[in-house]
């Protein structure tokens, strides 16, 4: 038994070395996730405050209006598009979703009405049908701001008020949430597309057939692949974690060791699918359609890039049981909520069942040529 395991380790060691000599494999395992990180980090990175892209069209020349504009520019609720100066231009941009809304301060905005000793006016918020949410939210924000201003000019009693307080200590950014999806995507790429490209190629050349003339057993071959992929995968994901933390301020609450163990289990699970497909296939053409059939549902429905909470309930309850879903959910719970392995019983349970099913199939359908 000791000799048999040594065989596995020799194969794993040399195949790991081989992996790091392959620029293409390195690109897909390490550079590709980081590229994705930059794309998604760039998209979601700065939105810890909701910000609306608005145009302010100031038709008034009152001092109050000018102050209001300056004030709006300096707070981070609005991103003001300075290039828009007319309502027509704003309309054009809103139609193309380049602008959420336009705030128009009419000519009389901020002027003192006859008989009053304070300024007054009505700002108008314009928005299009596809920006209804932004429009109403903006209306509410401006309303609250004006109430504050009003109270400075006119004393009023406010018997009822609302105060809000944030209770979640660790504010989740979108990146914190999507990062586990990115890791899931990496595991999918490495675990499935690795073997389905490599094995048929090795079969075509007769490399695996040659191995089948030796006493090497299928389980030794599989296990050496699992070890190689786990080393390579964890290395790639450690680099991705490093970038996410250093550049995009990812908050990781959970324990890295536990996350590593969990991810390794995820790699073993998904790699089983790759071993089954690649081990079964005689050539690349045979395996491609089947691989897509297996991979696409997980790519789109397991919560890699599209949040599962946006799906209808029936779809969520089905996709709960896809192999990749518990991998991503578990990692997310560890990263964002600091859950431990012992808290992830349901996820680990689904994964364990899949591991048994998938590897049973992989051993059954494997062929050396």
């Amino acid at each position, binding site marked *: 038994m000791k000799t048999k395991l040594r065989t596995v380790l*020799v194969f794993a060691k*040399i195949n790991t070395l081989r992996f790091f000599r392959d620029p293409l494999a390195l690109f897909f395992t390490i550079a590709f996730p980081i590229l994705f990180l930059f794309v998604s980090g760039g998209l979601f990175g700065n939105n810890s405050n909701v910000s609306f892209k608005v145009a302010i069209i100031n038709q008034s020349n009152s001092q109050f209006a000018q102050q209001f504009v300056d004030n709006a520019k300096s707070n981070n609720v609005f991103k003001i598009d300075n290039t828009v100066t007319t309502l027509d231009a704003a309309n054009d941009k809103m139609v193309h979703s380049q602008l959420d809304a336009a705030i128009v301060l009419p000519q009389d905005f901020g002027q003192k009405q006859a008989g009053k000793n304070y300024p007054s006016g009505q700002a108008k918020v314009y928005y299009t049908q596809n920006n209804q949410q932004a429009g109403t939210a903006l209306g509410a924000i401006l309303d609250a701001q004006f109430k504050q201003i009003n109270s400075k000019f006119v004393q009023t009693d406010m018997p009822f008020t609302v105060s809000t307080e944030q209770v979640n200590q660790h504010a989740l950014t979108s990146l914190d949430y999507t990062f586990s999806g990115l890791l899931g995507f990496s595991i999918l790429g490495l675990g499935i597309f690795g073997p389905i490209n490599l094995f048929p190629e090795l079969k075509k050349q007769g490399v695996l057939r040659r191995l089948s003339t030796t*006493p090497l057993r299928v389980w030794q071959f599989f296990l050496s692949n699992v070890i190689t992929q786990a080393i390579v995968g964890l290395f790639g994901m450690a680099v991705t974690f490093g970038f996410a933390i250093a550049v995009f301020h990812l908050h990781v609450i959970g324990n890295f060791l536990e996350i590593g163990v969990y991810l390794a289990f995820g790699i073993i699970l998904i790699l089983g699918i790759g071993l089954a497909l690649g081990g079964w296939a005689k050539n690349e053409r045979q395996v491609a359609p089947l691989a897509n059939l297996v991979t696409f549902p997980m790519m789109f429905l397991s919560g890699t890039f599209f949040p599962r909470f946006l799906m209808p309930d029936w779809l969520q309850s089905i996709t709960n049981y896809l192999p990749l879903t518990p991998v991503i959910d578990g990692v997310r719970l560890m990263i964002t909520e600091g859950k431990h392995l012992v808290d992830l019983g349901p996820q680990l349970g689904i994964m364990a069942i899949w591991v048994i099913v998938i590897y049973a199939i992989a051993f059954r359908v494997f062929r050396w040529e």
Partner: protein
Amino acid sequence: MTQQNIVVVDQLRKSYDDKEVVKGISFSVKKGEIFGILGPNGAGKTTTLEMIETLRPIDGGTVTLDGIDVAKDPWAIKRVIGVQPQTPAFQDKTRLKELLEMFAAAYGEKISVNEFLADVDLVDKANSYAETLSGGQRQRFSIAAALVHNPKVFFLDEPTTGLDPQARRHLWELIQAIRDRGITVIMTTHYLEEAEMLCDRVAIMDAGQIIALDTPKNLIKQLLDRGFTKKQHVEQANLEDVFIDLTGKGLRD
């Protein structure tokens, strides 16, 4: 001369779909000889070898190798045979010394890699990748890989196909050296002069049957005894001799 039989093939059969490609052949290979299987393409040579090598299920008959029934205990057979496939290929981006280490590990062995590379004149390539080798180098390396566990029987399937004359002669010397180490060699070829020079005995196969089996000398003698005369007059040398004389016997690769 009584030599022990190391391989005994009895009534061996194989069919693909409805076509019988090996039709109940029987032969024995003596310990320490180079045994050649000759025949045109499609004669069933490779299929026969693959059944003895445990790579293909046996449809009928038995094969006993070193006292082990191939069909009953294929895993024990794998430990005592070395196999050189028709077109040896190795995984890319892996150094020769690493590949040898892997092959040894597959048999649960640890070896001195350099010794094995020295046997096939490839020490200076220890750190090269297999895909950078020439055809002759690859055949030689493949032989080293097949011998890491010191097998009792070594199978070669058309080892010299596609090699230039120097590389071929070099390979012949290597195969003889392996036989001299006490390893039984079973090889297929369709180069008849190769069989004549190298093999102690040859079996000639055609259409799934063995149609002749003896030493090359006896086979020729039997033919002459039947009154055969070659139409062409025999040259003292042939074009290959000229080529080797002009370009030298030294290996270039």
